[in-house]
């Protein structure tokens, strides 16, 4: 690419951003405000994880329950029944009769990632912006929110989190790790 062509490319990109920006800034606040209004939700989820340590992608599915602002339960039904409750920064894992409680604060490297879905559901813009650069695509009816870690330590682990949704419902969460591993969760709210 000649310098001139590169310059043209950059200008085009700048123009695109300039055109898109005014449409985006306000909607982020709007979206967060809408999400924050949601007090309770139940949804089915399906998760696929593409990890280097795995011979093949791993599938799991179950039910998500959310109660504003800081209680999120993920009940996995397949392949094994287990539940995971995130409540006030405490993570309780239950499998059969075994229960284990972890404090998110004990895992500062990973805590923001685990907390990101909850913070999005709660429309907690401050909590999200403290850890991530946010960018919103689309419109309020069909939106995509991209979370880019600010902290270099976190960035070394995760490239981005992409959350897609319609209006006040989250439909898809994608986590792209820096080492190439990836996981994708699709969510279908129960009405």
């Amino acid at each position, binding site marked *: 690419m000649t310098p001139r062509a590169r310059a043209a490319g950059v200008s085009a990109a700048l123009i695109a951003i300039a055109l898109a920006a005014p449409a985006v800034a306000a909607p982020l606040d709007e979206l967060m405000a809408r999400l924050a209004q949601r007090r309770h939700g139940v949804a089915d989820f399906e998760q696929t994880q593409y990890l280097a*340590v*795995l011979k093949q992608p791993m599938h799991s599915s179950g039910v998500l329950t959310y109660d504003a602002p800081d209680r999120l339960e993920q009940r996995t039904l397949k392949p094994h029944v287990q539940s995971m409750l995130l409540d006030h920064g405490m*993570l309780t894992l239950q499998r059969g009769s075994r229960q284990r*409680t972890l404090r998110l604060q004990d895992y500062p490297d*990973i805590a923001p990632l*685990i907390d990101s879905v909850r913070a999005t559901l709660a429309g907690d813009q401050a909590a999200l912006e403290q850890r991530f650069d946010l960018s919103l695509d689309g419109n309020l009816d069909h939106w995509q929110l991209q979370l880019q870690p600010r902290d270099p330590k976190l960035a070394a682990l995760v490239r981005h989190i992409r959350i897609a949704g319609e209006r006040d419902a989250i439909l898809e969460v994608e986590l792209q790790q820096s080492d190439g591993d990836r996981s994708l969760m699709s969510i279908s709210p129960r009405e």
Partner: protein
Amino acid sequence: MNRTRVLRLAAWLLALGAAVGVIAHARFSADLSAFLPRAPTATEQQLVDQLQNGLAAHLILIGIEGGSAVERAAAARALTAALSRQSDFLAVNDGDAAGEERDRAFVFAHRYVLSPNVTPDRFSAAGLHAALEDSLDLISSPAGLLAQSLLQSDPTGETLAVIDQLDAGSAPHSTQGVWSSPDERRALLLAETRVSGSDTDGQARALRAIQTAFESAAPQHLRLLLSGPAVFAVSARATIEHEVKRLSILSSAMIVTLLLLVYRSVATLLLGLLPVVSGALAGVAAVALGSGVVHGITLGFGITLIGESVDYSIYLLVQSRRNPQHDSVQVPPRLWRTIGLGMLTSVCGFASLLPSSFPGLAQLGLYSIAGLLAAAAVTRWVLPSLLPRRVRRRDLTPVGRAAARWLSKRHGWGFGLLALGLLNAGFLYSHRERLWNRDLTALSPVSATAQALDGELRAQLGAPDISNLVLISGSDQEAVLQRAERVSQRLDALVASGAIGGYDSPSHYLPSAHTQAARQLSLPDADTLRQRLGTATADLPLRPQALQEFVQAVDRARGAAPIDRAALAQTSMALALDALLWSQANHWHALLPLRANRRTPNGGDIDIARVRAAIADEPAGSTLALNIKQETDALYGSYLREAVRLSVIGFGAIIVLLALVLRTAARVARVIVPLVLAVLVVAATLIASGVPLTILHLIGLLLIVAVGSNYALFFDRRTTDAVDDLPLTLASLLVANATTVIGFGVLASSQVPVLSALGATVAPGALLALWFAALLAPRALFAAAASS
């Protein structure tokens, strides 16, 4: 001045000099331990010492309130930095991220010797299969990232097992990178002082250092909260010192004013104090000779106990007249005999304290006996020689005559008082199960608010609460740790059954060398492990090649040197370990604090008998399960029973003494009945107003008998005797009684429970004793005196 007088004065001055000499070489102790129960057996004594000197007694719990979370965190960091530089502190921890990071790094590095799950089974092909399946499940959860980061290096989850075991449930909450209360309104720190818990001066210095550092490090609108055994000891001492000072100034001022009104001469007033001062010096010297160490609090109490000796000089100064012809002091014929008998009665009462195993009581007994003997002797043989020639005393005869007139008109009180006595005795009998307060905290100078704050900070910090515990002693560290591990297994079963909520053990931080070696032996070599992983992952979606890091980590752990105390340095676990494992005089001790199960219906009191049963096969004596509050209350209860028994014996001795001297039952009864009545009414009133009696109330009742016996003895006279001295006798009794009621009445207003208990018992008791003694005296006596 004749030779006898000179000799007496010389002997007195010599004795005072000797007493001062003894006192100058005496050891004084400022702590309150004399009024805490002393354990009866050597083992329990050792236990109490260890708890007082163990690390729990070195911990100061610190809270910071007010301002914003950011300001509190900044203040906490600044305070930590400032205190860490001071030699008064061994460690200061605010839960900062760097410290937490070091802790995690330590746990991760040593997971294979720390984890209780490391067994040969765990590392068999089947065990690995189960562990990997668990890890894969974890990956598909919101905590998946956490599991993922550990999957390659720690697929069997030993790091999590160690964290679980370290009682993560009780670890403090964290805000802005420092420890905080769960509601995030208070930043929390933990400081370990260098000086032991029994060094109150050192603890006071450490507390001042914290306050100074806080004031220079934090903005004005932040508040500092301090708690812990050091704070209690220092504030208790300060409160008592302050109260004693305030109360003695207040009561001295009132008593001095009263006596100046009576004596109208400063010189006479000062002379009147000579018996008290001599008695106090004799008392302290006797205690110093008798028990080696004089407790500060004995001094304070002792003065009030021999306050009775002020009465001696009042009796002398009010009742005596100077005979101008012989240049001698004329005293009423019965004065010395009455004072002497009253003094002996008190000595009988206080002698009953001597055999007490409550150290403070025994000292008080000795102090009072020596003090009263000396005071009475000075009043009898020294004071008359020193009285000034020109007496400017106010003549109190009119006051006495007025009292006599008033008393001569009262009649028919005998039956009324008998009925009152029976009524109160009946009331006490019906409440006999609830007479005594068996709770030691009733004596504690620590306020309920301060105790509540301590409980709150302790819970929020997860600091060891040593109210229920297992204590292990042994000859060396390894033996103690091994036993702690065996006891831990029993306690695990109790946790599983819900009998206890959890526990902490030094072996969680530092497993015994034996256990560390056994765990290392459970780990297979690299080739074997690879082979087993191949088998284990055959039907799992996991690629065995992805677990290379795990194989290397296990291989390293097999050959690693075992960890010791030094390996924990720089982690917050070092502090936890020191609190739970220490050596003293070539003996090692491990402390396993028990946590109540909050989910049980009774809200979590630990049934210590169940814990005892669970560890019953451990050698008794070197492994003890204790509920500290129960133990100390039981100990206190036994002291209380003993003190009651001794008081009854002392009372019996007083009756025998009076019977020997007074010879007739009627006279003994006239002296004893008013005292018994006063004791009954005071005790019944206390109980009726919802104050169960403590050991201090018992001392108060004893004092009523001691002081009141003097009053009653003055009324022990036949109606045929001369009555011309009676008005002055009555007046001197009124003055003496007023000083006692003022002194103890002021004490009753104290915030220190031991002082107010004493004051609230003696002030009304002394008043009633005089009142009853006068009402029960023959009326004809007063009629004659009023008209004389």
